[in-house]
């Protein structure tokens, strides 16, 4: 655990690092080791787990917060709706994650306990920034011991603040760093997703419209030939849901997905017709 000196192996990376050895070179054997240029490689590697997973996009719209996840379907025999990435953790709060999915279950469980205990102790709903900070501390704790590994997750927190009277969007990365966002994107092709988000005028979108835009962005950034098929998962919390976090109803979700896909096709056709001129 913590405090044990790192054993450096001569000439190259740790066990199984193989072709990646030039990146870690022995400084990546545990969370308790800094590299000479000040990186903790294990946290970076956890970030890679997120980067290689399906996209997750959150938007703070004018009447609430909506988050969507591109759930890559590894197996055609998988039933729809199984292996969720979006979870309510209290009446007024929900989280979504992408990355190393097995870690997600632990985080959801921890978040549910935190929210429940806070309500029990303090008699009020856990405000979004407090839940985010607690989860951030939780993620961070797993980066401080040599015997642990960081969570391979990026987590979005969408929750209602009853003093401010609105819902807020936060995102936490594997290091435990967290910020409050107007719009956030992570996972595959997140840079392209962020570019698309910046084109939106979020203050004029409702969560229904935001949902469609998220579906559109996911379809835009995907490469249909290369990427695995996906299920579009989403959750939201808004004035219309009475500020309760819920999974987006199936028909609404499928509608938004269809809209997004159609919009991408329309834009491609427009591009094609422009080229012809």
């Amino acid at each position, binding site marked *: 655990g913590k405090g044990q000196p790192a054993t450096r192996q001569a000439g190259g990376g740790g066990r199984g690092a193989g072709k990646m050895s030039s990146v870690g070179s022995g400084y990546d054997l545990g969370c308790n080791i800094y590299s000479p240029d000040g990186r903790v490689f294990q946290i970076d590697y956890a970030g890679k787990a997120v980067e290689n997973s399906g996209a997750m996009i959150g938007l703070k719209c004018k009447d609430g917060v909506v988050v969507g996840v591109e759930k890559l379907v590894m197996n055609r025999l998988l039933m729809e709706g199984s292996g969720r990435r979006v979870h309510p953790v209290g009446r007024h709060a929900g989280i979504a994650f992408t990355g190393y999915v097995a870690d997600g279950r632990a985080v959801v469980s921890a978040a549910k306990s935190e929210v429940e205990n806070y309500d029990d*102790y*303090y*008699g*009020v709903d856990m405000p979004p920034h407090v839940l985010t900070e607690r989860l951030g501390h939780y993620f961070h704790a797993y980066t401080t011991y040599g015997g642990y590994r960081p969570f391979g997750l990026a987590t979005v927190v969408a929750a209602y603040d009853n*003093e401010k009277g609105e819902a807020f969007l936060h995102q936490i990365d594997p290091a435990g760093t967290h910020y409050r966002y107007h719009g956030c994107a992570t996972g595959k092709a997140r840079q392209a997703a962020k570019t698309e988000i910046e084109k939106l005028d979020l203050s004029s979108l409702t969560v229904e419209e935001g949902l469609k835009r998220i579906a559109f962005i996911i379809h835009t950034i995907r490469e249909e030939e290369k990427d695995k098929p996906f299920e579009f998962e989403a959750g939201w919390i808004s004035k219309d849901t009475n500020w309760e976090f819920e999974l987006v109803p199936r028909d609404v979700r499928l509608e938004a997905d269809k809209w997004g896909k159609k919009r991408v096709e329309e834009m491609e056709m427009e591009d094609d017709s422009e080229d012809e001129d």
Partner: protein
Amino acid sequence: SENSSSSSSSRVGTVGAETARATMVDTESLGGGAPRLKAGEVDLGTSIMAVAFNGGVVLGADSRTSTGTYIANRVSDKLTGVHDRVYCCRSGSAADTQAISDIVRTQLSNHATELGRLPAVKTAASLFQRYCYEYKDRLMAGIICAGYDEIEGGSVYSIPLGGACIKQPFAIGGSGSTYIYGLCDSMWRPDMTREETRNFVKTALSHAMARDGSSGGVIRTVVIDKNGVDRDFTPGDKVPFSF
């Protein structure tokens, strides 16, 4: 005086019979060890109340602390702050209520630090309730928690002996409160102004102090609103009502 149980058996089981005496008879008859003031322990036999108005609350209390028939402190302050805009009125054992309010003050402070803003009054009441309920067999504490927050405005929570927590437009407590239930019910109106509310509190408490041997001295009031906390003091010879 706190050990006499005459005249209280008829009040067993009635809602709002918050005298230490009445409840002690009740729990004794159930066979459990009832919380009692120990020999020589200081008693906040008392008249306390808190009333919410639009934009804040008024808390009020008498100032008598007795040990048996001896008045240990005739000018005590039973209105105790637990945060910037949250106060509590204390009745029952002085030691128990001081210990509880000290703990709640610390916890509220830590909570507010994490929260980054003023806590809800409901949170303070929830913390009071936690201790009053979990340790009900060892404590004798009747607490009224009141204050101002952005979400609810002024709110009043009554936490009597067993550790129940009830939000009310106004609450009265302590041994003297039994004498003013009728008066308060007839005097209270919704939507009173700040001054009307303060006068209501002073008048009701002076009636309680006139009839209850365990209450007396001066009337202290605290008015809490968005802008701050305003303490007031009415000397014993200037109370609205006395014989």
